[in-house]
């Protein structure tokens, strides 16, 4: 079985972010990068299917700037067979393909001559939270899409999934090829050790530019974006919160409830 995993590299969620001078992107000079957590679930699921079935190949597809190479190395160390990196470093102002439509167009073009039975993507990338690239890719490639999957069973021709829906779960099936997105709970991603990561440095990455996959950079970046960032700001500061002093838990509780009622007016 040929499995494609769509992976995005995102700023490490632990670290603060700075807004760039342009005010429409973040300053990535000191950014520490990581694999989008939902894409770790996708990588793990692809590897589990491969291990269970044997005779399978896992191909990673990622769109991003130069430093994505780091994330690819981690994916290789996890066990991915091949990686395709479409380098979209054409326009600093549109960091990391914040626009899902252009990203999806790039992915669909890159997949033109990659055979696949199943595509696994994350439900969302935790930098832009767009929940959109998988739907766009599925639409362009005319594939059934099953989102927020917590469990799957795949035969050579069909995929059966349990997915999270509002208020519960659904069991659904689709014919292959299909695209699914992952939800927490589907698996526990493996952590490759340092040695495996070092060894993965030797692996070759199939790096391509937009022109290589038949796309005109003119139509990408800010030009092709369907959601254009006009400005960025930090959320309003909560200020230094009030520390509630009191001689006992009961007294603190009393003061809190009074503040919630009189000052904050929320109860």
């Amino acid at each position: 079985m040929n499995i494609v995993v769509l992976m995005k590299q995102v700023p490490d969620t632990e670290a603060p972010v700075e807004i760039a001078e342009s005010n429409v992107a973040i300053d990535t000079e000191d950014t520490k990068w990581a694999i989008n957590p939902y894409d770790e679930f996708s990588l793990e699921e692809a590897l589990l299917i491969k291990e269970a079935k044997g005779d399978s190949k896992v191909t990673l597809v990622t769109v991003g700037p130069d430093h994505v190479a780091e994330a690819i190395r981690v994916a290789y160390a996890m066990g991915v067979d091949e990686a395709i990196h479409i380098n979209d470093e054409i326009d600093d102002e549109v960091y990391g393909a914040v626009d899902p439509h252009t990203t999806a167009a790039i992915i669909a073009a890159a997949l033109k001559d990659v055979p696949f039975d199943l595509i696994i993507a994350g439900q969302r990338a935790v930098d832009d939270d767009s929940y959109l690239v998988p739907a766009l890719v599925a639409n362009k490639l005319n594939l059934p899409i099953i989102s927020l999957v917590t469990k799957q069973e795949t035969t050579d021709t069909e995929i059966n999934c349990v997915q999270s829906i509002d208020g519960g779960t659904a069991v659904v099936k689709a014919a292959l090829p299909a695209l699914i997105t992952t939800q927490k709970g589907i698996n526990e991603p493996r952590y490759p050790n340092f040695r495996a990561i070092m060894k993965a440095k030797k692996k070759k990455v199939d790096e391509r530019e937009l022109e290589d996959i038949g796309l005109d950079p003119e139509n990408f970046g800010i030009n092709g974006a369907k959601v254009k960032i006009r400005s960025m700001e930090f959320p309003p500061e909560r200020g230094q919160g009030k520390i509630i002093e009191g001689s006992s838990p009961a007294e603190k509780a009393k003061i809190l409830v009074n503040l919630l009622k009189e000052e904050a007016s929320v109860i």
Partner: protein
Amino acid sequence: MAQGVMVVAELFNGSFKKVSLEALSKGKALADSLGESLVAVVMGAAVSEPAKELAKYGADLIVVAQDADLEGYRPCQQHNVLVDIINDKAPRMVLFGATRQGKELSANVSATLDVGLAQECLDLFIEDQKLVAKRTLFGGKIIATVDIEGDTQLATIRPNVFEITEATGAGVVEECAVNLGTVNVTLIEEKVEVSSKIELTEADYIVSGGRAMDGPDFSILENLAATLGGAVGASRNAVDAGWRPQTDQVGQTGKVVSPKLYIACGISGAMQHIAGMSTSDVIVAINNDPDALIFKTSDYSIVDDLFDVVPAITEEIKKLA
């Protein structure tokens, strides 16, 4: 010519989701500012009766699509029917509640119509007759103002952010012809819990517990939540320990919530947790470590043992009643 604002309203267990009414209220304000009409869309098995209620929130026209195969979670079928409705009515913009269904449906429509979509919006306004949105990026660390491009602009709104306001609309109900189209995902079984539990993303009050709960007994948090008329949430640590279901998890790999009041009990305040609750109106943190990170994000902080403080808060709130 594009005209007016459309809102897709979701019925759940026979009543409209709160977030759908919030979307209608915002949609009405946007329609008024354009001087145009508000169209509501309701899809499901038997929806024309309940749909009438939407006139109360300013819907001028209520398009109902009735078919057993549109009931519940049917992203494929609903997408096919909704695209027909959008093509027919040609609204300038379409709003959805950011439920799982709303996010999936809007994403599929965005793909088919090749138009822009902003998810989980915190604010919406109109400039040059086009929709502009405010939404969070990078796990709530940044708020961006974005221009949505395309002939029909799409947006989902984060639950609990917009007010519900009543208004008068003509409320003309129009049943549309339903063509389910090509369906490439087959539903085998749908298990939806019909409980009195308030859905976390719609709760006005959330009491969340973390690793400090030290076991599956969350009764003190449940009592406080019940007294407030709210719901119980959890940190990832509490979920991973198996004390709470995944559906209770708040954060980057859980739900994003925006209640009036969020009470974090024994939660350290990791960025990934903050990402799920930072847009709450008021945040209270209870932690016995005075240096806990969570105090940096809270409006009111109590440094003490949660097992003593939480029951005391419950008692104090009961006294108010």
